């Protein structure tokens, strides 16, 4: 009996295993080789394209395709020559983690697959699937209806920065549509979502808007940083926001060049810097003023440069505050003979000349900067006086010195002033238009002048669209001023999430008669739409990328559009056709590109002259830049009235800002009474784990980044005061709104400052913050000074924001 028990058991075991072997369920018992796909079937095709998302990278991507499906994405090679065949810089930026994750993005389950029409309340999240034909008919009818009823401009087209490609991105077909149908549209320069205030300040000093069609913005090619003797990364987290550029910074540093990081947060960039100045945010102008004061006091500026290329010796009329002029000439004192004369005739213009109470611009600057002693600056910026001196001495001793100024400075109400001060400082140091110097925020602005964008946006027979800035557009929707906007088409733009003062934005969008959104995911903006149109990603359509560097990157269609997605150009073409404007949209992407690039036109801009189409499609040629690496103003010709660097800005006299003396920000400054109630400065910076609101939900990136869940960086000192522990849910709030996230305690942020990375989704379906969104807190307060530069006249000051933080449940 006992033996039987045992035998029965063994039999049972064998039987069970046998059954399962037969059914093939025991893959873990199976001794065969692991499941293997064997050799790749089908042919593997390689494509070179450019990654057109707005991350300041503009990398080349090499995409491997097998059987019509992408199998691998990696960085691509670049041509080592310019269009004309000259040697280009030896620089091979490589794709970052987000670039590699594009394979995930393309096939993401989050992709918008079909056109939809909303059913029920706007923003209720209920949809009805449409055919493209139905959807585009509805769009065409509604745009026409609104235009008939409220005027042509009452339709607002908003193509923005989700993509920087030429045909469909920030400078894309949406503007062409706007011109063709006579609509208004957002302005692309600096995209007005926080990237406009520093460009405005740059133009104050370096470019007259009257001479540059409203303003320009440009920098140095990255490889030029190898020529610098010191590099200052001012409010710029290069190691996260321009990862591929870090290679150059690291090369320079390896060669002995010191790197300074000025940032209230200890970022991966600060961690690698030789000097980290944890400045009180918003006070950078004061620090710059301190350095200017030091250079002037210690005569440590480049006197020859200043004399030749700036307005330093020009005399300023004490009454009018304008430069003393004779005819068109500016007057100076000639140090050679002490006489007042036009600057062209002076042998040695006196930098500190004086005539009947009229003092030189440099004298006025010195007077204006005199209060900015190291002690005073240190107190304002919450630094040590020795740190201010350290920075000033660096400027005095290291020449040339290159500055990379982050757009973070532009996320402040007075970013214009900060940039004005910075340009002033760099001109005193002789660093403008100089290899190894300059102020670079982003590179590649050149291409906008090299391309024939005018005809692309407003084809012959049409008038250029009316510019309506995003902030003004909100007003136009809500209050009908300056004119009513009743319908809008958003493409490549996640306005309802990325624009500041989100509650106002949502109110504005909800008030519209008709809203159509083109996107490749169901964004927060698409949530509010009447019609959503599924867009292609950069891999499913043909385009050209030319931004952030000086290369032309053709973007061939790598795979066919997935599901029922269509390129934005195709969507626009369908709608325009139905509105009766088909003749303006009758070409292929390649044909448009050839026109825009002036292929074969001997009168083309020198930067693209001689370009052959095969060069475009066959590689990634470098533009014909005046110098290699490219340096803005290398010829020292400045598009200003005087042709010099005008650090004394006549145009700003009415704003009492002709010189860059420190002014408080619009909201986030210590003396603001509001700071009693909301004592913390709220930053919402950019992280390497996403590009704005793109790629946030990709599993690979989420796995590394806290599962994609947003968090609030807070210093333990501030946390302790509020009884907050690491991981606690906190409420961040001010009068405009609130959000809830978990607190992440870190010593890497200055006490008094908190940070919650921008870009996470707060859509009906996906929420990366427990509740709300950083832009529930930010404001739309305008800085009127900026209006003097039309192309950069409005700016969202995301970081100029005060909040209080509370432990949830406390």
């Amino acid at each position, binding site marked *: 009996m006992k033996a039987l028990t045992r035998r029965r058991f063994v039999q*049972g*075991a064998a039987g*069970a295993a046998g059954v399962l072997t037969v059914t093939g*369920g*025991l893959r873990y*018992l*199976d001794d065969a080789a692991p499941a293997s796909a064997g050799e790749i079937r089908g042919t593997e095709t390689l494509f070179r394209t450019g990654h057109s998302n707005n991350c300041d990278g503009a990398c080349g991507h090499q995409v491997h395709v097998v059987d019509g499906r992408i199998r691998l994405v990696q960085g691509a090679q670049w041509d080592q020559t310019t269009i004309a065949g000259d040697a280009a810089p030896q620089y091979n930026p490589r794709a970052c983690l987000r670039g590699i994750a594009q394979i995930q993005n393309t096939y993401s389950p989050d992709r918008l697959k079909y056109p939809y029409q909303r059913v029920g309340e706007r923003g209720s999240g209920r949809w009805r699937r449409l055919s493209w034909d139905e959807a585009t008919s509805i769009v065409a009818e509604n745009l026409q209806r609104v235009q008939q009823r409220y005027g042509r401009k009452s339709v607002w087209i908003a193509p923005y920065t989700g993509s920087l490609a030429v045909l469909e991105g920030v400078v894309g077909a949406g503007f062409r549509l706007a011109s063709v149908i006579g609509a208004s549209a957002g302005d692309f320069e600096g995209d007005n979502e926080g990237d406009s205030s520093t460009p405005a300040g740059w133009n104050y000093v370096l470019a007259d808007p009257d001479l540059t069609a409203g303003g320009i913005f440009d920098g140095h090619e990255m490889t030029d940083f190898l020529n610098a003797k010191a590099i200052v990364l001012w409010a710029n987290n290069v190691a996260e926001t321009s990862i591929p550029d870090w290679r150059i910074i690291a090369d320079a540093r390896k060669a002995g060049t010191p790197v300074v990081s000025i940032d209230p947060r200890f970022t991966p960039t600060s961690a690698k810097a030789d000097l980290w100045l944890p400045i009180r945010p918003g006070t950078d102008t004061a620090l710059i003023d301190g350095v200017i004061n030091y250079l002037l006091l210690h005569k440590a500026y480049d006197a020859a440069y200043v004399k030749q290329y700036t307005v330093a010796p020009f005399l300023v009329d004490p009454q009018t505050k304008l430069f003393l002029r004779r005819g068109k000439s500016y007057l100076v004192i000639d140090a050679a003979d002490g006489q007042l004369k036009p600057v062209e005739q002076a042998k040695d213009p006196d930098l500190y000349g004086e005539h009947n109470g009229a003092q030189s611009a440099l004298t006025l600057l010195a007077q204006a900067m005199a209060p900015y002693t190291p002690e005073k600056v240190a107190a304002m910026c919450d630094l040590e006086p020795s740190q201010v001196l350290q920075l000033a001495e660096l400027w005095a001793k290291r020449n040339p010195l290159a500055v990379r100024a982050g757009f973070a400075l532009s996320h402040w109400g007075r970013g214009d002033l900060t940039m004005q001060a910075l340009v002033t400082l760099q001109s005193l140091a002789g660093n403008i238009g100089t290899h190894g110097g300059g102020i670079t925020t982003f590179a590649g602005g050149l291409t906008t002048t090299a391309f024939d964008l005018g005809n692309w946006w407003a084809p012959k027979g049409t008038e250029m669209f009316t510019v309506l800035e995003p902030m003004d557009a909100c007003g136009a929707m809500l209050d009908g001023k300056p004119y009513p906007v009743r319908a809008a088409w958003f493409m490549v733009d996640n306005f309802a999430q990325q624009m500041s003062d989100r509650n106002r934005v949502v109110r504005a969008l909800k008030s519209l008669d008709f809203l159509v959104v083109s996107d490749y995911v169901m964004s927060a903006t698409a949530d509010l739409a009447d019609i959503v149109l599924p867009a292609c990603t950069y891999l499913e359509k043909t385009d050209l990328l030319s931004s952030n560097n000086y290369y032309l990157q053709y973007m061939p269609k790598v795979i066919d559009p997935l599901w029922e997605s269509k390129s934005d150009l195709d969507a626009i073409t369908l709608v325009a056709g139905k509105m009766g404007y088909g003749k303006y949209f009758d070409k292929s992407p390649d044909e448009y590109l050839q026109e825009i690039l002036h292929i074969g036109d001997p009168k083309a801009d020198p930067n693209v002259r001689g370009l052959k189409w095969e060069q475009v499609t066959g590689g990634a040629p470098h533009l014909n830049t005046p110098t290699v690496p490219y340096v803005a103003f290398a010829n020292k010709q400045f598009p200003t009235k005087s042709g010099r660097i005008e650090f004394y800005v006549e145009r700003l006299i009415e704003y009492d800002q002709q010189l860059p003396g420190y002014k408080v920000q619009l909201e986030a400054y210590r003396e603001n009474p509001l700071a009693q109630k909301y004592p913390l400065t709220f930053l919402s910076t950019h992280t390497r784990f996403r590009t704005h609101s793109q790629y946030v939900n990709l599993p690979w990136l989420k*796995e590394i980044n*806290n*599962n994609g869940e947003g968090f609030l960086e807070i210093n333990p000192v501030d946390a302790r005061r509020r009884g907050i522990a690491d991981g606690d849910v906190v409420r961040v709030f001010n009068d405009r709104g609130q959000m809830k996230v978990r607190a992440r305690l870190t010593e890497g942020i200055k006490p008094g400052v908190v940070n919650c990375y921008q870009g996470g989704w707060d859509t009906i379906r996906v929420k990366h913050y427990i509740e709300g969104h950083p832009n529930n807190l930010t404001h739309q307060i305008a800085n009127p000074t900026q209006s003097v530069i039309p192309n950069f006249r409005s700016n969202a000051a995301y970081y100029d924001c005060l909040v209080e933080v509370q432990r949830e449940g406390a």
Partner: protein
Amino acid sequence: MSAIEPTLALPKARDRIVGRGWIVALALLALVGFGAWIYQLTQGLVVTGMRDVVSWGMYIFTFAFFVGLSAGGLIMASAAELFGIRSLRPLSRIGVMTAAACVLVAAMMIIPDLGKPARVWELFRYPNWRSPLVWDVIIIVVYFCFASADLIVMTRRGIAPGRRGRILRMMALVGLPAAVMLHTITAWIFGLQISRPWWNTALMAPVFVVSAILSGTALVALVALAARRFGRLELPDETVSALRKLIITAICVELYMVGADYVTILWGNVPSERAALDMILPGGSWQWVFWLEWIAGGLFPLILLSLPRLRRRPGMMALASVLVLVGVYAFRIELVDGGLLKPLVMLAPGQSMGSFTAGQSSFQLIGNYYPTWVEFAITAGMMAFLALLITLGYRWLRSLEAGHGAAEPEGAGG
């Protein structure tokens, strides 16, 4: 003389029913465990609570526990022969049978832990002689063969008592070192690993041997007490008292060694070692292990076994034995997972776990481990199977005796 003669008497009718029920229950439990294993085979080890940081769990610490259990019997039998400890001799056959069963099930316990169980034969085909696991496989096989041989010698008819005694004594000469080696090598699976400071102590082997003796003795005591209760085993007081003293001594030595290790770590204060110990000491997240080992499995049994009032009662002895087993099991958990929970490289974000659950981190800085029902089922099944083997083994011994009269184990003094 006859007082210490073991008598495997026949059970009463009522107990026979209880006995049948017991066997059926164990068999059912073992089948449930087997079923759980089949389920695991279809799904992969993802159905366990193990992941890449804590990649060894219940299967392995149960394995280590079973290996330890096998110590008692053989050591007792060998000691009885070698040193002529007469009081232990009544337990020799039960002890050796238990040892063989334990080591067999210990070996089986490895199988559900393997990712590719069908390849287990590769251990013999491609042995890597540098791997302590290979030594362990060898010693387990040797030990099982040896215990079986010992049992055969003890029970085989037709061996002259004097001759049997001589053979047994000679076998004991091998048995004792073999037992020590079994536990030493099993300990070395862990103790030789430089990557786990918690494991990497020279004390690992001695502690393992002592705790093996402790748990093995407790198991034999439990089996013997159960046999006395249900199987009419005549268990002389002298034997019980010897068992009691052995357990007390083993508890003390074991706790002394573990304590000495704690002190060394506390005093040395090397962060990587402290990290592991702090989890286990009171206040740490695994402190329950400490309480089970030191209080439930240490202090309580000591009290139960030494207080004159309590120690006489057989129930107390049984309870103490159970507590000792619990304590030693806790010690096995502490030993195996204490080394894994806090990896040497413990910097954010830690190590990826090897599985993905939306909304949960893929990384672990500090290991985390909760066995799943599958592991409980398989482990319980194995335990049931072990109990079944021991029960059946005991019945077999008894039937031998019933059929052929007591096999003569004596020869002592002869």
